[in-house]
Protein backbone atom coordinates (compact mmCIF):
# COMPACT_ATOMS: atom_id res chain seq x y z
CA UNK A 1 0.00 0.00 0.00
CA UNK A 2 1.35 3.45 -0.89
CA UNK A 3 1.84 5.89 2.02
CA UNK A 4 -0.18 9.13 1.83
CA UNK A 5 1.97 11.96 0.50
CA UNK A 6 1.70 13.75 3.85
CA UNK A 7 3.80 10.96 5.36
CA UNK A 8 6.35 10.71 2.57
CA UNK A 9 9.85 12.03 3.35
CA UNK A 10 11.09 15.22 1.70
CA UNK A 11 13.73 13.32 -0.26
CA UNK A 12 11.13 11.00 -1.81
CA UNK A 13 8.87 13.91 -2.63
CA UNK A 14 11.80 15.62 -4.33
CA UNK A 15 12.41 12.49 -6.42
CA UNK A 16 8.77 12.54 -7.45
CA UNK A 17 9.01 16.22 -8.32
CA UNK A 18 11.99 15.42 -10.54
CA UNK A 19 9.77 12.85 -12.25
CA UNK A 20 7.19 15.58 -12.87
CA UNK A 21 4.72 14.72 -10.09
CA UNK A 22 2.96 17.95 -9.19
CA UNK A 23 1.14 16.26 -6.29
CA UNK A 24 4.55 15.84 -4.63
CA UNK A 25 5.17 19.57 -5.01
CA UNK A 26 1.73 20.24 -3.54
CA UNK A 27 2.58 17.98 -0.58
CA UNK A 28 5.84 19.86 0.11
CA UNK A 29 3.95 23.13 -0.24
CA UNK A 30 1.36 21.98 2.30
CA UNK A 31 4.17 20.95 4.65
CA UNK A 32 6.18 24.17 4.60
CA UNK A 33 4.07 27.02 3.16
CA UNK A 34 2.67 28.02 6.57
CA UNK A 35 6.02 28.59 8.24
CA UNK A 36 7.40 30.33 5.14
CA UNK A 37 4.42 32.61 4.67
CA UNK A 38 4.55 33.74 8.30
CA UNK A 39 8.21 34.69 7.86
CA UNK A 40 7.62 36.44 4.53
CA UNK A 41 4.69 38.50 5.82
CA UNK A 42 6.73 39.48 8.85
CA UNK A 43 9.67 40.63 6.71
CA UNK A 44 7.75 42.26 3.88
CA UNK A 45 4.75 43.56 5.87
CA UNK A 46 2.85 43.10 2.64
CA UNK A 47 0.74 40.00 2.20
CA UNK A 48 0.56 40.30 -1.60
CA UNK A 49 4.33 40.52 -1.90
CA UNK A 50 4.71 37.59 0.47
CA UNK A 51 2.36 35.51 -1.69
CA UNK A 52 4.45 36.32 -4.75
CA UNK A 53 7.74 35.36 -3.10
CA UNK A 54 6.19 32.16 -1.74
CA UNK A 55 4.98 31.13 -5.18
CA UNK A 56 8.37 31.94 -6.75
CA UNK A 57 10.11 29.87 -4.12
CA UNK A 58 8.17 26.71 -4.85
CA UNK A 59 8.43 27.32 -8.56
CA UNK A 60 12.20 27.39 -8.14
CA UNK A 61 11.95 24.09 -6.28
CA UNK A 62 9.90 22.60 -9.13
CA UNK A 63 12.45 23.73 -11.70
CA UNK A 64 15.59 22.85 -9.73
CA UNK A 65 14.66 19.88 -7.55
CA UNK A 66 17.51 17.82 -8.98
CA UNK A 67 19.99 19.98 -7.04
CA UNK A 68 18.62 18.84 -3.70
CA UNK A 69 20.76 16.28 -1.87
CA UNK A 70 18.72 14.96 1.04
CA UNK A 71 21.75 13.31 2.64
CA UNK A 72 23.39 16.72 3.04
CA UNK A 73 20.58 19.18 3.26
CA UNK A 74 17.30 20.07 4.88
CA UNK A 75 14.46 21.22 2.68
CA UNK A 76 13.01 23.35 5.47
CA UNK A 77 16.27 25.21 6.04
CA UNK A 78 16.83 25.69 2.31
CA UNK A 79 13.38 27.16 1.82
CA UNK A 80 13.78 29.45 4.83
CA UNK A 81 17.22 30.71 3.83
CA UNK A 82 16.27 31.37 0.22
CA UNK A 83 12.91 32.82 1.22
CA UNK A 84 14.48 35.17 3.75
CA UNK A 85 17.15 36.28 1.26
CA UNK A 86 14.53 37.00 -1.36
CA UNK A 87 12.27 38.87 1.00
CA UNK A 88 15.11 41.02 2.38
CA UNK A 89 16.36 41.76 -1.14
CA UNK A 90 12.87 42.81 -2.11
CA UNK A 91 12.63 44.95 0.98
CA UNK A 92 15.80 46.72 -0.13
CA UNK A 93 14.17 47.44 -3.47
CA UNK A 94 16.19 45.13 -5.65
CA UNK A 95 14.80 44.26 -9.06
CA UNK A 96 13.25 40.81 -9.40
CA UNK A 97 16.00 39.43 -11.64
CA UNK A 98 18.64 40.52 -9.13
CA UNK A 99 16.74 38.82 -6.31
CA UNK A 100 16.53 35.55 -8.24
CA UNK A 101 20.23 35.72 -9.02
CA UNK A 102 21.09 36.37 -5.36
CA UNK A 103 19.10 33.43 -4.08
CA UNK A 104 20.62 31.09 -6.64
CA UNK A 105 24.01 31.76 -5.04
CA UNK A 106 23.05 29.81 -1.98
CA UNK A 107 23.63 26.16 -2.63
CA UNK A 108 20.98 23.77 -1.42
CA UNK A 109 23.67 21.24 -0.61
CA UNK A 110 25.29 23.67 1.81
CA UNK A 111 22.59 23.36 4.45
CA UNK A 112 23.02 20.58 6.98
CA UNK A 113 19.90 19.05 8.45
CA UNK A 114 18.68 20.72 11.65
CA UNK A 115 16.44 17.95 12.89
CA UNK A 116 13.43 16.12 11.60
CA UNK A 117 11.39 19.09 10.47
CA UNK A 118 9.52 16.94 7.96
CA UNK A 119 7.43 15.66 10.82
CA UNK A 120 4.55 17.98 11.73
CA UNK A 121 4.73 17.17 15.43
CA UNK A 122 8.50 17.70 15.65
CA UNK A 123 8.20 20.95 13.74
CA UNK A 124 5.42 22.15 16.04
CA UNK A 125 7.51 21.22 19.06
CA UNK A 126 10.53 23.16 17.83
CA UNK A 127 8.29 26.13 17.01
CA UNK A 128 6.87 26.04 20.52
CA UNK A 129 10.33 25.89 22.09
CA UNK A 130 11.61 28.74 19.93
CA UNK A 131 8.58 30.89 20.61
CA UNK A 132 9.06 30.28 24.32
CA UNK A 133 12.75 31.15 24.10
CA UNK A 134 12.07 34.33 22.12
CA UNK A 135 9.34 35.41 24.53
CA UNK A 136 11.68 34.82 27.46
CA UNK A 137 14.45 37.03 26.04
CA UNK A 138 14.82 40.50 27.56
CA UNK A 139 12.86 42.84 25.27
CA UNK A 140 15.96 44.75 24.10
CA UNK A 141 17.68 41.48 23.10
CA UNK A 142 14.56 40.27 21.29
CA UNK A 143 14.25 43.60 19.50
CA UNK A 144 17.87 43.45 18.33
CA UNK A 145 17.51 39.92 16.95
CA UNK A 146 14.21 40.73 15.26
CA UNK A 147 15.63 43.83 13.60
CA UNK A 148 18.51 41.74 12.24
CA UNK A 149 16.44 38.74 11.20
CA UNK A 150 13.26 40.34 9.90
CA UNK A 151 14.61 43.68 8.69
CA UNK A 152 18.07 42.57 7.63
CA UNK A 153 19.85 45.21 9.75
CA UNK A 154 23.51 45.06 10.70
CA UNK A 155 24.55 45.79 14.27
CA UNK A 156 25.55 49.32 13.32
CA UNK A 157 22.14 49.92 11.73
CA UNK A 158 20.42 48.50 14.80
CA UNK A 159 22.45 50.79 17.06
CA UNK A 160 21.35 53.77 14.99
CA UNK A 161 17.71 52.64 15.03
CA UNK A 162 17.45 52.04 18.77
CA UNK A 163 19.80 54.85 19.76
CA UNK A 164 22.31 52.71 21.67
CA UNK A 165 26.10 52.42 21.49
CA UNK A 166 27.29 49.77 19.03
CA UNK A 167 28.96 47.80 21.81
CA UNK A 168 25.67 47.52 23.68
CA UNK A 169 23.89 46.23 20.61
CA UNK A 170 26.65 43.69 19.99
CA UNK A 171 26.31 42.41 23.53
CA UNK A 172 22.54 42.13 23.18
CA UNK A 173 22.68 40.24 19.89
CA UNK A 174 25.37 37.86 21.13
CA UNK A 175 23.54 37.15 24.37
CA UNK A 176 20.28 36.50 22.51
CA UNK A 177 21.94 34.19 20.00
CA UNK A 178 23.59 32.24 22.81
CA UNK A 179 20.20 31.67 24.42
CA UNK A 180 18.56 30.65 21.17
CA UNK A 181 21.45 28.39 20.23
CA UNK A 182 20.71 26.43 23.38
CA UNK A 183 17.27 25.58 21.98
CA UNK A 184 18.85 24.08 18.86
CA UNK A 185 21.51 22.26 20.86
CA UNK A 186 18.78 20.71 23.01
CA UNK A 187 16.84 19.82 19.88
CA UNK A 188 19.80 18.02 18.33
CA UNK A 189 20.29 16.07 21.56
CA UNK A 190 16.68 14.95 21.37
CA UNK A 191 17.11 13.81 17.78
CA UNK A 192 20.48 12.09 17.62
CA UNK A 193 21.91 11.55 14.20
CA UNK A 194 20.01 14.40 12.62
CA UNK A 195 22.45 17.23 13.25
Amino acid sequence: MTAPLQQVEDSSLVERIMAGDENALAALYDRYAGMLFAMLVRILRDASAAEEVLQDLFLQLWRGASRFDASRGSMAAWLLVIGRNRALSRLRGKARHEILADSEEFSIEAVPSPGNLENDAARAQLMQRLQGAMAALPSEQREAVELAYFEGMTQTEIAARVGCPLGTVKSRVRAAMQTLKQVFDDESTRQPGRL
Partner: protein
Amino acid sequence: MNRHVNPEDSDLYALGALDGTEMQELEAHVRSCAECARAVDEARQRVALLALAAPAVAPPARVKEALLRQVRAERVPEVHRSGAAKVERGPRFLWLTPVFGVAAVIFAALAAGIWMKDARDNRRIHELEGQLAVVETRSLEIARAADETDRLLGMPGTAKVALEPMPGMPAGRVGVLYNAKMGMVTYAGWLPAAPPKKSYQLWLVPMKGDPVSLRVFSRGEWTEPETMHVPPGMAAKAFAVTEEPEGGMPAPTGPKLLVGGVSQGE
Protein backbone atom coordinates in the same frame (compact mmCIF):
# COMPACT_ATOMS: atom_id res chain seq x y z
CA MET B 1 41.75 37.12 9.43
CA ASN B 2 43.91 34.03 9.90
CA ARG B 3 42.44 32.65 13.09
CA HIS B 4 39.35 30.42 13.00
CA VAL B 5 35.94 32.00 13.10
CA ASN B 6 34.46 32.39 16.56
CA PRO B 7 31.18 30.36 16.73
CA GLU B 8 29.36 33.49 17.90
CA ASP B 9 30.56 35.33 14.81
CA SER B 10 29.23 32.50 12.63
CA ASP B 11 25.80 33.09 14.13
CA LEU B 12 26.06 36.85 13.67
CA TYR B 13 27.19 36.39 10.08
CA ALA B 14 24.27 34.05 9.38
CA LEU B 15 21.94 36.55 11.00
CA GLY B 16 23.31 39.24 8.69
CA ALA B 17 24.25 41.39 11.67
CA LEU B 18 27.99 41.71 11.00
CA ASP B 19 29.12 45.02 9.57
CA GLY B 20 31.14 45.46 6.37
CA THR B 21 34.72 44.88 7.50
CA GLU B 22 33.86 42.10 9.95
CA MET B 23 31.80 40.36 7.30
CA GLN B 24 34.50 40.65 4.63
CA GLU B 25 37.18 39.27 6.96
CA LEU B 26 35.00 36.32 7.91
CA GLU B 27 34.13 35.55 4.29
CA ALA B 28 37.80 35.72 3.28
CA HIS B 29 38.77 33.21 5.98
CA VAL B 30 35.85 30.86 5.24
CA ARG B 31 36.87 30.64 1.60
CA SER B 32 40.10 28.95 2.62
CA CYS B 33 39.00 27.01 5.73
CA ALA B 34 36.70 24.02 5.29
CA GLU B 35 36.16 23.68 9.02
CA CYS B 36 34.92 27.23 9.42
CA ALA B 37 32.90 26.99 6.20
CA ARG B 38 31.05 24.04 7.70
CA ALA B 39 30.50 25.93 10.97
CA VAL B 40 29.10 28.90 9.05
CA ASP B 41 26.78 26.63 7.06
CA GLU B 42 25.51 25.11 10.28
CA ALA B 43 24.95 28.56 11.73
CA ARG B 44 23.09 29.57 8.60
CA GLN B 45 20.57 26.76 8.86
CA ARG B 46 20.23 27.27 12.61
CA VAL B 47 19.58 30.98 12.22
CA ALA B 48 17.15 30.37 9.33
CA LEU B 49 15.01 28.36 11.69
CA LEU B 50 14.44 31.43 13.86
CA ALA B 51 11.55 32.01 11.48
CA LEU B 52 9.81 29.22 13.36
CA ALA B 53 9.57 31.52 16.34
CA ALA B 54 6.61 33.10 14.54
CA PRO B 55 3.39 31.04 14.45
CA ALA B 56 2.79 29.47 11.04
CA VAL B 57 0.26 31.29 8.87
CA ALA B 58 -1.66 29.52 6.12
CA PRO B 59 -1.33 31.46 2.87
CA PRO B 60 -4.51 32.00 0.85
CA ALA B 61 -5.51 29.04 -1.30
CA ARG B 62 -5.02 31.10 -4.45
CA VAL B 63 -1.22 30.93 -4.02
CA LYS B 64 -1.17 27.15 -4.28
CA GLU B 65 -3.67 27.23 -7.12
CA ALA B 66 -1.57 29.73 -9.06
CA LEU B 67 1.59 27.71 -8.39
CA LEU B 68 0.03 24.49 -9.68
CA ARG B 69 -1.41 26.30 -12.71
CA GLN B 70 2.04 27.62 -13.55
CA VAL B 71 3.62 24.22 -13.03
CA ARG B 72 1.11 22.62 -15.40
CA ALA B 73 1.72 25.35 -17.95
CA GLU B 74 5.46 24.73 -17.80
CA ARG B 75 5.21 20.96 -17.94
CA VAL B 76 6.92 19.59 -21.01
CA PRO B 77 4.38 17.46 -22.89
CA GLU B 78 5.11 13.86 -22.04
CA VAL B 79 6.43 11.88 -24.94
CA HIS B 80 4.99 8.43 -25.09
CA ARG B 81 7.59 6.13 -26.43
CA SER B 82 6.39 2.73 -27.53
CA GLY B 83 9.03 0.16 -28.27
CA ALA B 84 8.79 -0.86 -31.93
CA ALA B 85 8.18 -4.57 -32.26
CA LYS B 86 11.02 -6.26 -33.93
CA VAL B 87 9.97 -9.04 -36.28
CA GLU B 88 12.47 -11.79 -36.78
CA ARG B 89 12.27 -12.91 -40.37
CA GLY B 90 13.85 -16.22 -41.28
CA PRO B 91 14.30 -17.50 -44.82
CA ARG B 92 11.49 -20.07 -44.41
CA PHE B 93 8.86 -17.38 -43.97
CA LEU B 94 9.92 -15.00 -46.70
CA TRP B 95 6.67 -15.69 -48.56
CA LEU B 96 4.80 -14.25 -45.60
CA THR B 97 6.57 -10.88 -45.87
CA PRO B 98 3.78 -9.08 -47.79
CA VAL B 99 1.20 -10.47 -45.37
CA PHE B 100 3.27 -9.24 -42.40
CA GLY B 101 3.67 -5.92 -44.14
CA VAL B 102 -0.05 -5.37 -44.55
CA ALA B 103 -0.73 -6.68 -41.03
CA ALA B 104 1.94 -4.40 -39.64
CA VAL B 105 0.41 -1.37 -41.32
CA ILE B 106 -3.07 -2.28 -40.01
CA PHE B 107 -1.66 -2.99 -36.54
CA ALA B 108 0.27 0.27 -36.50
CA ALA B 109 -2.84 2.22 -37.55
CA LEU B 110 -4.91 0.54 -34.83
CA ALA B 111 -2.18 1.04 -32.24
CA ALA B 112 -1.85 4.70 -33.21
CA GLY B 113 -5.62 5.15 -32.94
CA ILE B 114 -5.74 3.46 -29.55
CA TRP B 115 -2.68 5.40 -28.35
CA MET B 116 -4.16 8.74 -29.46
CA LYS B 117 -7.45 7.90 -27.73
CA ASP B 118 -5.58 6.85 -24.59
CA ALA B 119 -3.50 10.00 -24.67
CA ARG B 120 -6.64 12.14 -25.05
CA ASP B 121 -8.37 10.25 -22.24
CA ASN B 122 -5.29 10.53 -20.02
CA ARG B 123 -5.04 14.25 -20.66
CA ARG B 124 -8.73 14.69 -19.88
CA ILE B 125 -8.45 12.60 -16.70
CA HIS B 126 -5.41 14.65 -15.68
CA GLU B 127 -7.28 17.90 -16.32
CA LEU B 128 -10.30 16.70 -14.33
CA GLU B 129 -8.08 15.56 -11.46
CA GLY B 130 -6.46 19.00 -11.46
CA GLN B 131 -9.83 20.75 -11.44
CA LEU B 132 -11.09 18.48 -8.67
CA ALA B 133 -7.99 19.23 -6.60
CA VAL B 134 -8.55 22.97 -7.04
CA VAL B 135 -12.22 22.66 -6.00
CA GLU B 136 -11.32 20.52 -2.98
CA THR B 137 -8.60 22.96 -1.93
CA ARG B 138 -10.93 25.94 -2.32
CA SER B 139 -13.69 24.21 -0.35
CA LEU B 140 -11.30 23.47 2.49
CA GLU B 141 -10.03 27.05 2.39
CA ILE B 142 -13.57 28.47 2.57
CA ALA B 143 -14.44 26.13 5.44
CA ARG B 144 -11.25 27.11 7.27
CA ALA B 145 -11.92 30.82 6.65
CA ALA B 146 -15.43 30.40 8.06
CA ASP B 147 -13.99 28.72 11.15
CA GLU B 148 -11.41 31.49 11.55
CA THR B 149 -14.12 34.15 11.13
CA ASP B 150 -16.22 32.50 13.85
CA ARG B 151 -13.17 32.26 16.08
CA LEU B 152 -12.25 35.89 15.49
CA LEU B 153 -15.80 37.09 16.17
CA GLY B 154 -15.75 35.28 19.49
CA MET B 155 -12.46 36.79 20.65
CA PRO B 156 -12.45 39.82 22.96
CA GLY B 157 -10.94 42.90 21.33
CA THR B 158 -12.03 42.07 17.78
CA ALA B 159 -12.92 45.24 15.91
CA LYS B 160 -15.61 45.17 13.21
CA VAL B 161 -14.98 47.73 10.50
CA ALA B 162 -17.23 48.54 7.52
CA LEU B 163 -15.35 50.34 4.76
CA GLU B 164 -17.55 52.97 3.11
CA PRO B 165 -17.10 54.51 -0.36
CA MET B 166 -15.50 57.94 -0.45
CA PRO B 167 -17.55 60.68 -2.19
CA GLY B 168 -17.28 60.53 -5.96
CA MET B 169 -15.53 57.17 -5.97
CA PRO B 170 -16.91 53.93 -7.47
CA ALA B 171 -19.19 51.87 -5.24
CA GLY B 172 -17.88 48.90 -3.33
CA ARG B 173 -18.20 47.38 0.11
CA VAL B 174 -15.63 45.65 2.24
CA GLY B 175 -16.03 44.47 5.81
CA VAL B 176 -13.09 43.76 8.07
CA LEU B 177 -12.67 41.96 11.38
CA TYR B 178 -9.41 42.77 13.15
CA ASN B 179 -7.86 41.52 16.34
CA ALA B 180 -4.62 43.37 17.07
CA LYS B 181 -3.52 41.03 19.86
CA MET B 182 -3.83 37.98 17.63
CA GLY B 183 -2.58 39.81 14.54
CA MET B 184 -5.51 38.47 12.52
CA VAL B 185 -7.50 40.28 9.84
CA THR B 186 -10.48 38.79 8.07
CA TYR B 187 -12.05 40.64 5.18
CA ALA B 188 -14.83 40.01 2.73
CA GLY B 189 -16.77 42.13 0.31
CA TRP B 190 -17.15 43.35 -3.21
CA LEU B 191 -15.08 45.70 -5.32
CA PRO B 192 -15.69 46.97 -8.85
CA ALA B 193 -13.18 46.31 -11.63
CA ALA B 194 -10.18 48.63 -11.35
CA PRO B 195 -9.54 51.05 -14.26
CA PRO B 196 -7.06 49.85 -16.95
CA LYS B 197 -3.46 49.57 -15.67
CA LYS B 198 -4.72 50.05 -12.10
CA SER B 199 -5.40 47.83 -9.12
CA TYR B 200 -7.26 48.34 -5.89
CA GLN B 201 -5.29 47.68 -2.73
CA LEU B 202 -6.54 47.00 0.80
CA TRP B 203 -4.47 48.50 3.63
CA LEU B 204 -4.29 48.30 7.38
CA VAL B 205 -3.43 51.80 8.65
CA PRO B 206 -1.71 51.40 12.03
CA MET B 207 -1.68 53.99 14.79
CA LYS B 208 2.10 54.11 14.40
CA GLY B 209 4.20 53.30 11.36
CA ASP B 210 3.49 52.67 7.71
CA PRO B 211 0.31 51.15 6.26
CA VAL B 212 0.46 47.41 5.74
CA SER B 213 -0.75 46.00 2.43
CA LEU B 214 -3.28 43.19 2.86
CA ARG B 215 -4.47 42.41 -0.65
CA VAL B 216 -4.34 43.65 -4.22
CA PHE B 217 -7.50 43.35 -6.32
CA SER B 218 -7.23 43.57 -10.08
CA ARG B 219 -10.59 42.43 -11.31
CA GLY B 220 -14.01 43.35 -10.04
CA GLU B 221 -14.77 40.57 -7.63
CA TRP B 222 -16.70 39.31 -4.70
CA THR B 223 -14.30 38.07 -2.08
CA GLU B 224 -15.21 35.25 0.24
CA PRO B 225 -13.96 35.74 3.82
CA GLU B 226 -10.18 35.52 3.82
CA THR B 227 -7.91 35.72 6.82
CA MET B 228 -4.50 37.36 6.79
CA HIS B 229 -1.95 37.59 9.56
CA VAL B 230 0.00 40.70 10.45
CA PRO B 231 2.57 41.25 13.19
CA PRO B 232 0.65 40.92 16.48
CA GLY B 233 0.18 43.95 18.69
CA MET B 234 -0.25 46.49 15.89
CA ALA B 235 -3.02 48.90 16.87
CA ALA B 236 -5.08 49.86 13.81
CA LYS B 237 -6.39 53.35 13.15
CA ALA B 238 -8.29 52.47 9.98
CA PHE B 239 -8.60 50.23 6.97
CA ALA B 240 -8.68 51.62 3.46
CA VAL B 241 -8.81 50.62 -0.17
CA THR B 242 -6.80 52.80 -2.54
CA GLU B 243 -6.36 52.91 -6.28
CA GLU B 244 -2.76 52.06 -7.21
CA PRO B 245 -0.70 51.23 -10.31
CA GLU B 246 -1.39 47.70 -11.57
CA GLY B 247 -0.02 45.05 -9.21
CA GLY B 248 -0.09 47.29 -6.15
CA MET B 249 2.50 49.41 -4.37
CA PRO B 250 4.62 48.95 -1.21
CA ALA B 251 2.95 52.06 0.26
CA PRO B 252 -0.30 53.80 -0.68
CA THR B 253 0.07 56.47 -3.36
CA GLY B 254 -3.35 56.79 -4.97
CA PRO B 255 -6.80 58.10 -4.07
CA LYS B 256 -8.88 56.39 -1.41
CA LEU B 257 -11.82 54.35 -2.68
CA LEU B 258 -13.14 53.01 0.62
CA VAL B 259 -12.28 53.93 4.19
CA GLY B 260 -13.34 52.56 7.55
CA GLY B 261 -12.11 53.87 10.88
CA VAL B 262 -11.48 51.59 13.83
CA SER B 263 -13.36 52.73 16.91
CA GLN B 264 -10.82 52.86 19.70
CA GLY B 265 -11.69 50.64 22.59
CA GLU B 266 -12.96 47.91 20.29
